[in-house]
């Protein structure tokens, strides 16, 4: 028995008892709230003190316990799944990564804090919780594995984004739509989740082969004159993240060097996202709206208790607000610290109302706003319904907004702007000469 416990503990993602208790309590409350609605939730939980004080009848307990068990069963597995992926992957555990870098560990060897995929120990816990849930709660047996796999895949997606593994990131991001779309057919949805788990796990395994992700801190020691410790101290003063990121982070240095070095930066970070990223990111929200529309349709078709309702009334208005916010964010990113070459008054009096090389930054946001708003209005007018209208308009809006030129790098090198130090002077960490 002791050997079994020792073996079991080896495969358990490490977290403290306090974390477990807090997570269990919070998750069960949330689950109960979500499952039973606010009224039942409040009614149930307000009886709890009464039970202890006045010893109310056992019928209250009968009503209360399955609800609590649902919460525990479902959310224990969700937290377990998060912990399995997040705590066991060095990329999301800073101290673990730092320690691992100091050890002879190499990709391909077992990870010291446990595997990043589902282990035998996980299967035992999964089976136990599934059985408990099946026998003591009204939930179906597939719910627990589904919750576990969903949690794992979400955590894996986050890690894949951080690892910069694009093919697997997009495969997981778009893949999530399949189990979601099949919710009306739970077993098919569960099967899709298993396939998605395979994809996400393979992506995580692949990410480990890039260990240690950034060059060692030795690479940034300055000509060997400083000790490694000194180099780390130097870089920590420059920016704490540099110690971790090493030479790659030198591209960030331009951000920390005041004005005008900040604006006239020599090192350029890789663009936030490439053209392919921009297209795929633009497709993602529309894709999920389409999935949600399909889920709604399939639930209605299978008579699963979804009310028809009509949410299309204020769709155009709401979307327009969202579009405006997104367009303003893009404009601010382009113009913060990079102002127009002459003032508005100067434009008027010199007859240069439009300065094409500067005003080009307004073109993409305006075109995106116009296209997005026109599409959603027209599609609703033609009776396409709110789901398809929103999906198409958001996709078109984002495609124009994210792909419309000029790119940020091109703009900051070739645009006809006047560089100001507004972006720096607002920050207290700079001093004016």
């Amino acid at each position, binding site marked *: 028995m002791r050997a079994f416990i020792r073996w079991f503990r080896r495969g358990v993602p490490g977290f403290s008892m306090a974390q477990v208790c807090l997570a269990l309590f919070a998750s069960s409350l949330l689950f109960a709230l979500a499952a039973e609605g606010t009224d039942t939730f409040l009614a149930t939980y307000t009886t709890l003190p009464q039970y202890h004080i006045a010893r109310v009848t056992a019928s209250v307990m009968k009503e209360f316990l399955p609800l609590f068990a649902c919460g525990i069963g479902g959310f224990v597995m969700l937290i377990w799944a998060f912990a399995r992926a997040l705590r066991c992957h060095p990329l999301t555990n800073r101290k673990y990564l730092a320690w691992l870098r100091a050890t002879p560990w190499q990709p391909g060897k077992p990870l010291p804090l446990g595997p990043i995929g589902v282990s035998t120990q996980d299967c035992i816990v999964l089976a136990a919780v599934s059985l408990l849930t099946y026998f003591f709660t009204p939930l179906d047996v597939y719910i627990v594995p589904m919750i576990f796999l969903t949690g794992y895949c979400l955590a894996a997606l986050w890690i894949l984004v951080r690892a910069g593994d694009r093919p697997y990131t997009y495969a997981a991001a778009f893949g999530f739509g399949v189990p979601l779309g099949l919710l009306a057919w739970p077993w098919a949805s569960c099967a899709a989740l298993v396939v998605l788990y395979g994809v996400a796990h393979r992506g995580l395994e692949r990410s480990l082969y890039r260990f240690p992700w950034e060059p060692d801190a030795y690479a940034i020691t300055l*000509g060997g004159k400083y000790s490694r410790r000194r180099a780390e101290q130097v870089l920590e003063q420059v920016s704490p993240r540099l110690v971790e990121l090493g030479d790659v982070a030198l591209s960030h240095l331009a951000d920390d060097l005041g004005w005008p*070095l900040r604006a006239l930066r020599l090192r350029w970070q890789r663009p936030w996202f490439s053209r392919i990223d921009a297209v795929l990111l633009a497709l993602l929200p529309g894709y999920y709206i389409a999935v949600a529309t399909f889920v709604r349709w399939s639930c209605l078709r299978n008579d699963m208790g979804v009310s028809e309702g009509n949410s299309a009334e204020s769709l155009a208005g709401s979307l327009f607000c969202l579009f405006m916010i997104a367009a303003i964010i893009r404009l601010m990113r382009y113009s913060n610290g990079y102002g127009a*070459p*002459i003032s508005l008054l100067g434009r008027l009096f010199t007859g240069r109302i439009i300065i094409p090389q500067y005003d080009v930054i307004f073109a993409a946001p305006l075109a995106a706003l116009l296209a997005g708003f026109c599409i959603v209005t027209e599609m609703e007018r033609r009776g396409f319904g709110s789901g398809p209208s929103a999906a198409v308009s958001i996709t078109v809006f984002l495609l124009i907004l994210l792909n419309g030129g000029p790119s940020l790098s091109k703009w900051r090198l070739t645009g006809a702007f006047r*560089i100001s*130090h507004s972006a720096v002077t607002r920050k207290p960490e700079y*001093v004016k000469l």
Partner: protein
Amino acid sequence: MIDVVSLTQHYGIRPVLKDIDLHINPGELAAVMGPNGMGKTTLLAAIAGILSPQKGYVEINGRRRRRTMEEEAAIRKDVAYLPADAWLPMMAVRDFIVTVGRVYEVEDERLLDHTDRLLHLFDLEGVQDAPIGSCSTGQQKKAALCSALVTDAPVMILDEPFSGGLDPSGILALKRVLQRLAQRRDVTVLIATPVPEIVEEIAHRIVILVDGRIAAFDTPDGLRKQTGCIGSLQEVLEHIVNPDTAANIERYFEGEER
């Protein structure tokens, strides 16, 4: 080499620079002088790429500013610009200088050695580990100058490098460094300063800006020949910028004697 072609710059309605044409040879040290508000800082900022002129263009070592991404990126590596109103980060003095050098990809051994020598030259060794914000104004100016000098950039644009609280030893040190740079054939230096005495000692040629136009651009001796004035550079400058100054002074004292 710096080429300025037909450059006109407005901030608002009034043009600050009007149709400026300027050619500074490689290895030359040129100084921009002129009364306040005549466009010295604007000219340097336009050459440094801070401003986008409404007309004309700037070329650095044969590459035109802001024409293509590649050209602009290459120019930025070649140019070190220190404005009079720079904002410095709150990092340690030495770290700041080293970091700027690393951004300009100065070779590590050379960078550390050069940093040590600059800190010693400008008497900053005592504050090298102190945050820039805790230094005096003069020390901050010295740190900023060190950061520009450490870059080893082939084109240096320094706006008012001698002002900003520099002590006499700092002024002397900077003067010597600039004189040494002026002797090299691979570094082009452009400075703006209102102090004629310093300019006379270090500059190959002097650009005199009046009302946004180049009133004169020549060597100190050439300017003397042009104006027929054999006195100090200050007198030559006055002759070009404000020919009536001497007469005005005479008139003032005549009035006092009466």
